[in-house]
């Protein structure tokens, strides 16, 4: 439900700005945020994340790009990167001294989706526009990090 709401907020903000300003990928921040607390010992593991990212990406592409697969590819790759990287960190290491890693994984969710299709299909990465997108994403990433460490602290208590 949270992911649907985040997807809608991202969509509404994009409508509001009319494409004049790049909106942070709130949906993928939500997916990565949940993945950081996910336990893959349950029955379905992290499959929800893979298919949520896939569905979210398809719907985003249908709404804003017109070419399904454009952002979907990046969303799925981000999820796989997070699952692999976070999986090799032992649970004890995830709660202490991992702020840089958390930042990198969250940044991945903003960097990879718009970049990957361009790198595969070719074309202009947008230069300054791409850079501005990353700048706009920074507050959202930092806020997500704050939320993450708040939740970690609450869990430890």
């Amino acid at each position, binding site marked *: 439900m949270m992911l649907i709401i985040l997807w*809608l907020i991202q*969509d*509404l*903000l994009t*409508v*509001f*700005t*009319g494409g004049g300003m790049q909106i942070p990928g709130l949906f993928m921040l939500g997916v990565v945020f949940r993945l950081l607390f996910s336990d*893959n*010992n*349950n029955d*379905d*593991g*992290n*499959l929800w994340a*893979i*298919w949520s*990212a*896939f569905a979210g*990406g*398809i*719907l985003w592409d*249908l*709404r804003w790009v*017109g*070419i*399904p*697969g*454009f952002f*979907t*590819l990046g969303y*799925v*790759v981000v*999820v*796989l990167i997070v*699952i692999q990287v976070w*999986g090799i960190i032992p649970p004890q290491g995830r709660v202490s001294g991992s702020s840089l890693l958390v930042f990198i994984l969250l940044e991945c969710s903003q960097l990879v989706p718009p970049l990957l*299709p361009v790198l*595969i*299909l070719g074309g202009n990465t947008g230069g300054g526009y791409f850079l501005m997108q990353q700048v706009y994403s920074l507050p959202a990433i930092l806020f997500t990090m704050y939320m993450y460490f708040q939740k970690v602290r609450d869990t430890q208590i």
Partner: protein
Amino acid sequence: MDNSRNNTREFVHGLTALILALFLLGVSSGLGVMKSIVDLWGAVLFIPEYPAVVMREIYLGWRSWSRDKNLLASEVTRLRNENASLRLELAKIAGERVFSDDKNNANTARVTLRAPMSWWSEIRIDRGSKDNITQGLPVFSGGYLIGRVSTVSMLSSWAELITSSSFMIPAVIEETRELGVVAGDGSGSVLLRYIPAGRGVRAGMKVSTAMIGEELPPGLPIGQIAGEFNIGTDGYTTYRIEPGADLSRFYTVNY
């Protein structure tokens, strides 16, 4: 056991999702049906997106209004400046016209009475309503305003002088465009009142009638600033005006 099985499942599902995404990326642009799906999804999202659309329209309307307001303000400033320079031109033209009239002796009247008891207040001239003299008509000497017609009879008229204590007209300092009131003191002096202090008014600046007065046309030259008279406690300064006309020695006037 469960962990490794989950890892394998995640890998398989991830790979499947990747292949699907790549497949869609490769083939979807060539599919005609994709446009219909895109349109359909856009139509579905129309309802939840509607508040954002409305807010965007409101924001754009506000931004447009704000921009228009700024444009309007700058246009008003430009027109004000243009108006000030036009008024200055008008004043020059009016002055030239008066000088010219004076030279041609057109509309000239002779001063027939200047009573010692009201020496600085009024004069009588030998022109009246038969010469198209009307009440309020400005009276000049040497091209400068010296008063205005106060009473008209058929053959003669009375003109109130600018030195009269009851004479008050709005005036403007041409160089600074400051507005004030020209008033006489009944003793031969002419003062410019109600000029805010510290506006850079200096001696020698020209004073003429202002457009805000209904009784006299704007731009009629009166004289020049002679110096500061006093500064009131209310922050307004009174200046002494040196009339352009010699009020002690005139035998004829123009109107």
